[in-house]
């Protein structure tokens, strides 16, 4: 017993001793001296431009070496189910380039998986993750990933030929290097060329909406009345209670449908005319609409399920047609809406005008911007960085994009009058059964890691129902918000931790607001949250974001 106590004492003393010799405070210092002027295009972007102007006939670099190799590729999305191989496209690409891919996908929480890979220095050859993830900076700061421009310089001049200078410029870091290449990105020239579309929609079930007389749901009164009417008319769907309105899943940081989506539908600007960032959460019309949802809940028009269900339960309910309306991402119900369409075309979800502000302005939905969706990086653990960068260049090139989007010629498409055209049976499968299409053909960006949407427009065929209506509805309502992307705080910094606390407090507050029994209770919860935010460095966070916004605008050449 005494011995044990002595041991404990020693350990405790050691702790004190070790603490005593460390008065270092951990402060994050940015190397201001090396920071480049954001209004100047980066050197690499200039290099890309020069390569384009020179227009030399460089042969695709993947042809240098087509011996078989398998690259491990981590995808930071637990829902990504696809394996490489077994379908026409991936087999064709492997045959052509020699590269096979072993996808690694987290089984549970993404952050947990990638954090432990970073901490354990076990990152695989390639990594794809959302550009907003804090791990991007962590990997760069930890020197765990290659600078793509340096790799290209050394092995692959073709990279500069196929890269897009706008995207390269956006992703050039302060040290003058580019570490990742985005997908689904639209550069400034692209959004001048193409009409922007958005993924954000307000959806209703067509037959029910028409049955209650296609009401105007833009005003609070019209919105609530429509929910009341539909609940009275269709209390049940196939024996189960109707869910009058659905949202994205509520998680521990809130619910995007009742934040971004709602604010965009209310056309709340993100900055004022002087270029100052707007605190959209404080907008009176936004608060008013949150109160409309509170009212809806009080009247029993919001099912408790919407607060509890996660994606799999929601997808099942969408496929069953149990929601009347939803503030939801149209691309996330493609498969389910197709099931509805096959069952009965009248029961599909269609996009209609949703909540709007008092002036009934058009919504300002998020259009595709420069930041795109994911970033793909090459880790320093890569067994063959030369092959990796060459394979990346191939995928970024027009040749690679055609392969990824259309699949192998003769198998999935034919050249008709100089335009690649789907074979009828392939097109049929694509429009009706995406799963089978992926398994058989693997085209149309089943492998989306480096998809270049503006480029593939040239091969796209017109969308068909039930997707076309949703797609077309967003036209004219989508705006480019590139400058507002990447306002993220430095990961691990004090402010980022404070922001994390605010976010998780919001995650708890939002359902409480909607479920508040009276408007007074709502106001009280709201005031409490606002003061919580103030106490947790909200102002400093806001200032930091303002500074990032100013940099972003310079980078994009906006005023």
């Amino acid at each position, binding site marked *: 017993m005494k011995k044990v106590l002595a041991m*404990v004492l020693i350990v405790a003393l050691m*702790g004190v001793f*070790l*603490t*005593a*010799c*460390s008065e*270092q*405070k*951990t402060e994050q210092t940015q190397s201001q001296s090396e920071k480049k002027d954001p209004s100047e295009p980066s050197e690499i972007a200039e290099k890309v431009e020069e390569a384009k102007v020179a227009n030399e006939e460089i042969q695709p670099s993947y042809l240098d070496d087509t011996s078989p190799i398998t690259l491990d590729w981590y995808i930071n999305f637990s829902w990504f189910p696809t394996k490489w191989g077994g379908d026409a496209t991936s087999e064709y690409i492997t045959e052509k380039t020699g590269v096979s891919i072993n996808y690694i996908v987290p089984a549970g*929480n993404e*952050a*947990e998986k990638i*954090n432990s890979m*970073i*901490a354990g220095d076990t990152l695989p050859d390639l990594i794809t993750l959302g550009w907003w993830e*804090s*791990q991007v900076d*962590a*990997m760069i*700061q*930890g*020197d*765990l990933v290659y600078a793509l421009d340096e790799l290209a310089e050394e092995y692959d001049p073709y990279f500069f030929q196929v890269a897009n200078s706008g995207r390269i410029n956006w992703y050039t870091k302060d040290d003058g290097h580019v570490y990742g290449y985005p997908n689904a990105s639209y550069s400034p020239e692209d959004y001048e060329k193409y009409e922007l579309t958005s993924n954000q929609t307000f959806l209703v079930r067509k037959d029910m909406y028409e049955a209650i007389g296609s009401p105007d749901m833009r005003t609070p009164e019209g919105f609530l009345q429509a929910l009341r009417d539909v609940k009275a008319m269709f209390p049940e769907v196939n024996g*189960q*209670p109707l869910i009058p309105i659905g949202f994205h899943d*509520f*998680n*521990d940081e809130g619910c995007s449908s009742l934040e971004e989506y709602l604010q965009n539908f209310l056309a709340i600007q993100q900055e004022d005319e002087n270029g100052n960032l707007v605190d959209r959460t404080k907008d009176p019309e936004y608060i008013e609409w949150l109160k409309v949802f509170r009212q809806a809940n009080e009247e029993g028009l919001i*099912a*408790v*399920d919407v*607060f*509890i269900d996660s994606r799999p339960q929601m997808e099942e309910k969408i496929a069953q047609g149990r929601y009347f309306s939803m503030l939801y991402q149209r691309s996330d119900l493609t498969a389910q809406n197709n099931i509805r369409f096959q069952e009965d075309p009248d029961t599909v979800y269609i996009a209609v005008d949703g909540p709007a502000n008092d002036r009934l302005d058009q919504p300002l939905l998020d259009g595709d911007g420069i930041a795109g969706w994911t970033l793909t990086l090459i880790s320093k653990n890569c067994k063959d960085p030369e092959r990796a960068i060459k394979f990346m260049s191939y995928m970024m090139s027009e040749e690679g994009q055609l392969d990824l989007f259309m699949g192998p010629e003769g198998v999935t498409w034919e050249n008709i009058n100089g335009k690649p055209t789907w074979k009828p049976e392939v097109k049929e499968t694509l429009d009706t059964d995406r799963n089978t299409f992926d398994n058989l053909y693997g085209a149309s960006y089943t492998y989306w890691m480096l998809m270049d949407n503006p480029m593939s427009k040239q091969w796209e065929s017109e969308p068909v129902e039930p997707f076309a209506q949703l797609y077309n509805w967003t036209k004219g309502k989508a705006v480019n918000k590139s400058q507002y992307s990447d306002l993220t705080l430095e*990961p*691990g910094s004090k402010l980022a*931790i404070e922001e*994390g606390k605010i976010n*998780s407090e919001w*995650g*708890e507050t*939002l*359902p409480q607001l909607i*479920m508040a029994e009276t408007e007074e209770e709502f106001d009280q919860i709201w005031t409490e949250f606002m003061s919580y935010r103030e106490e947790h460095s909200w102002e400093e966070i806001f200032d930091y974001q303002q500074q990032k916004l100013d940099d972003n605008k310079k980078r994009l050449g906006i005023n």
Partner: protein
Amino acid sequence: MTNTNILKKIKVQRTLLLMVLPGVLWMIIFNYLPMYGIIIAFKEFKIYQSMFEAPWVGFYHFIEFFKDEDFFLVMKNTLGMSFLKLLIGFPLPIAFAVLLNELKLSRFKKNIQTISYLPHFLSWVVLGGIMITWTSEAGLVNEVLLGIGIIQKPIAFLGDPKYFWGIAIASDIWKEIGWNAIIYLAAIAAIDVSMYEAAVIDGANRFQKIKYITLPSIAPTIAMLFILAVSGVLNSNFDQVFVLNNPLNSNASEVLDLYVYRTGIRAARYSYATAIGLFKSVVAFALLFTANKVTRRLTGNSLF
């Protein structure tokens, strides 16, 4: 004991010692060596650096944790649920084992036992899914309660913090009661039958047999398991809470383990998570000692 004595003893017991060796090595490698990682609790560790590069920050992370506004909520939930589990969940398997032992029909007894410990083999992911379905508004529980007229309209049990502890404790007992009873059944089986025979001759009835023979005979086992259970009060059943928790009930379901997972592991604040883990270990260590001491005073039985 002198040195030569020890050497002699080692020589005599060399085969036995050799048999113990793999186990000792395993423990050193997997339980003791990783302990050096504790130092990051006193450092500002960034996931892309090595442990040694990280600067020392002393008790910063501990203080941060005690200062955190969620600290009291998390402790309240963890301790509250653990004590209730201890209070209700600990005696129940004992009672269950004793009652099971009284059953005379051996086939019936076997069946009951099998059914009762079956849920133990299902993971919380599966059981949690079942619980979510059962307790939902259109679920089994609501249908039964509506059917017998206890409630007038369905309740979303998992959407209301006030039901969470009850659900967590009840489902935990349901899952583990049969399994936990096994060890007591084994202890009961080891009781000398002649004692019961003697008691019967002295005119003891069933309850007297339980009171004067069964319970005193398994008291050492009970004491031992109790000490171990007490040291675990800061462990909340992570899997269970993780599956059953949602934003609506988080006021009652945010427990220490979940907090560590969210703020530490998921947000990559490993130093912070380690500090909380270390804090837990110290508390568990203190509780183990206290419980051991108290039990020895009271019953004369103890772990060490």
